[in-house]
């Protein structure tokens, strides 16, 4: 089996930007100066060679949904999207003790992809009893969080952050004040009122953001806010950072692509938590990416059974998958909205998550065997069900046009193509 390749005329992402087209030689997974005898020549004119992306917000729903979506499917989704590394947060099986952590590390360790784990702040993500965070830290978690559960009591939130502070690791929160979320299923605004659907006000997020930032500043605990969806939340983050609070945040792929103006279609794949907000919010999220307020983009990859989406909007299970199409779907908007959009987008997927977690940033370097993928930015195609791994396809991008696709991955030293059916 050939283990030497030449990607002819490719643009490699090195030192933070895509370089001029050149032949990119690889031997046994390592970038080498070349030429290499007997190397397989792969036409890559106009294609980009990008270090494996880092996925935030990954939960393959194992073990309770293994009839529909398994770890294997999740890994396949990552490969199709060019993701070589992920922060895994299991809602179904919270990592709240060392045995669960070891089980997750064992399961994912054989995948050839790199996984990091968040330890739970509380047992079972219930917000009642502290998890054994010190032991989890010694076992290798990179931070702490209770998935999408937000503690209902501020006292517990304070204690959890205080206890976690001993590890110096970041606490992750999805800010959401439950009592304001209620049974809401869409953003509370013009469209929810026109459709008569119960809304979730932006204040459900901003109030929680404010609480977390106040505690983080007081207790001097680094925090990360997941899937920020409102313009005002970003303002709160900016103000907090200006007064010294160590806060990072991400926004999700789908909140960058869609807003509540599309609600009339009543596509249950747009039923998300937090809900899609207004166009103004969406534009503010892009602005946040441009000005550095937001450090990373989250995939918020959440498989949902087809039958749980094939229902009326209110009763549909919230969530969307996005690993497979995230980078390609965002690229056109990034080119329009961000300075040096293609490089900025790559950095947000490669450097941002690693910097948030304090783990090494992947970068291509001569003589090194960093995983990478080859992306062809020009191809336009419709997103179809078979693009998604497993038996799910709950993406609002379904049926929409995608620009670009992953041609192949060089993960774990082996070149793989034919990622798409």
């Amino acid at each position, binding site marked *: 089996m050939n283990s030497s390749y030449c990607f002819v005329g490719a643009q490699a992402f090195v030192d933070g930007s895509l370089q001029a087209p050149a032949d990119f030689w690889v031997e046994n997974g390592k970038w080498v100066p070349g030429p290499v005898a007997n190397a397989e020549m792969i036409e890559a004119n106009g294609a980009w060679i990008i270090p494996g992306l880092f996925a935030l917000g990954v939960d393959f729903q194992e073990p309770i949904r293994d009839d529909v979506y398994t770890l294997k499917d999740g890994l396949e989704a990552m490969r199709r999207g060019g993701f070589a590394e992920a922060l895994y947060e299991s809602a179904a099986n919270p990592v709240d003790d060392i045995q669960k952590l070891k089980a997750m590390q064992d399961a994912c360790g054989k995948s050839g992809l790199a996984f990091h784990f968040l330890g739970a702040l509380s*047992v079972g993500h219930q917000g*009642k*009893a*502290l*998890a*054994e*965070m*010190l*032991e989890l830290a010694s076992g290798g978690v990179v931070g702490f969080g209770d998935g999408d559960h937000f503690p209902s009591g501020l*006292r*517990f939130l304070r*204690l959890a952050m*205080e*206890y976690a*502070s*001993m590890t110096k690791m970041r606490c992750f929160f999805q800010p959401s004040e439950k009592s304001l979320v209620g049974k809401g299923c869409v953003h509370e605004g013009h469209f929810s009122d026109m459709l008569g659907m119960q809304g979730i006000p932006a204040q459900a997020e901003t109030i929680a953001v404010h609480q977390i930032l106040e505690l983080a500043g007081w*207790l001097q605990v680094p925090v990360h806010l997941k899937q920020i969806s409102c313009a005002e939340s970003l303002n709160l983050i900016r103000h907090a950072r200006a007064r010294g609070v160590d806060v990072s945040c991400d926004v999700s792929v789908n909140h960058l692509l869609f807003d509540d103006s599309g609600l009339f279609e009543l596509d249950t794949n747009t039923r998300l938590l937090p809900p899609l907000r207004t166009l103004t919010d969406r534009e503010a999220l892009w602005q946040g990416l441009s000005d550095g307020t937001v450090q990373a983009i989250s995939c918020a990859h959440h498989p949902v059974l087809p039958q749980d989406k094939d229902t009326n909007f209110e009763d549909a299970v919230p969530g969307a998958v996005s690993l497979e199409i995230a980078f390609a779907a965002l690229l056109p908007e990034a080119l329009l909205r961000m300075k040096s959009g293609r490089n900025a987008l790559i950095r947000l997927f490669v450097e941002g998550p690693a910097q948030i977690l304090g783990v090494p940033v992947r970068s291509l370097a001569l003589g090194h065997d960093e995983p990478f993928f080859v992306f062809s930015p020009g191809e336009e195609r419709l997103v179809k069900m078979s693009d998604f791994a497993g038996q799910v396809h709950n993406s609002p991008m379904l049926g929409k046009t995608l620009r670009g696709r992953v041609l192949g991955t060089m993960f774990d030293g082996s070149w793989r193509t034919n990622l798409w059916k």
Partner: protein
Amino acid sequence: MSFLETKHLLGLRGVSRNDLRTILDTAKQFREILDRPVKKVPSLRGITVVNLFFENSTRTRISFELAEKRLSADSVNFTSSSSSLTKGESLLDTMKNIEAMKIDLVVVRHKGTGVPAFLARHSGAIIINAGDGANEHPNQGLLDIFTMEQKYGSMEGRVVTIVGDVRHSRVARSNIWGLHTLGAKVRLCGPATLMPRNRNFFEAAGVEFISDIHQALDGADAVIALRLQKERQEDSLLPTLREYRNFFGVTSEALQHAKPEVLIMHPGPINRGVEIDSSVADGPNSVILDQVTNGVAVRMAVMYLLSGGRADE
């Protein structure tokens, strides 16, 4: 009239170095008396002491009672469950009634911070704090220091590590203030949820906060393991006793970082296998039972000096 600069012993914070020295030096003489065949001296004959224990106590109350008997004082005991307080009488009225009985010295323990100070303001009697809330337990601090001085002579420059629930510990606070006054360096180690949050006053006293027990014990001359109330777990301050023991327990493994001659101390009662391992509590460096013995001598000295006596009389 007190032979100390202070009229009462409400805490060790603010007590002068001279007073501490006088108490500790006097306690040495009483400690010798406790080794005699006849352990009783007439020093407080004619002095009436009331032990006002509004909180449950066994060893502290017995220690005070013994000290009073050894000094030939007349003592009476009072517990809140058997008092008029259960019938709605205020603390002040209870105190005034007791005072009307011509009490000279009051030993008081109460769950409320500042109760001894309150009684001192409203009473002509001498007040000795036997523990108020999480504020101070000055006699425990003194007997701990006394026990350390038995080994080291002076505490000047010595390193004392206090491990555990400092936030809720009156023992820790009295030790901190007393040790600081006598020139020792104090380190505090424990889960962040059980540590004082606002550290300026402590840090001004040279106290170091170290969450890693190995670092906290590095070069320590003495370690005081604090009792961990198991309710702290129910109160969400701790994940599990297992994790507490693994990361903050005073174990043989953790002690490898301390000096070989490190003193092992505990105010009691001990949760074996939680804050301290049995092999350590019962080991050759343990002075836990010495603390108990020394407690009587220190209390004798405190009562004696506050009452105006001198040990060599």
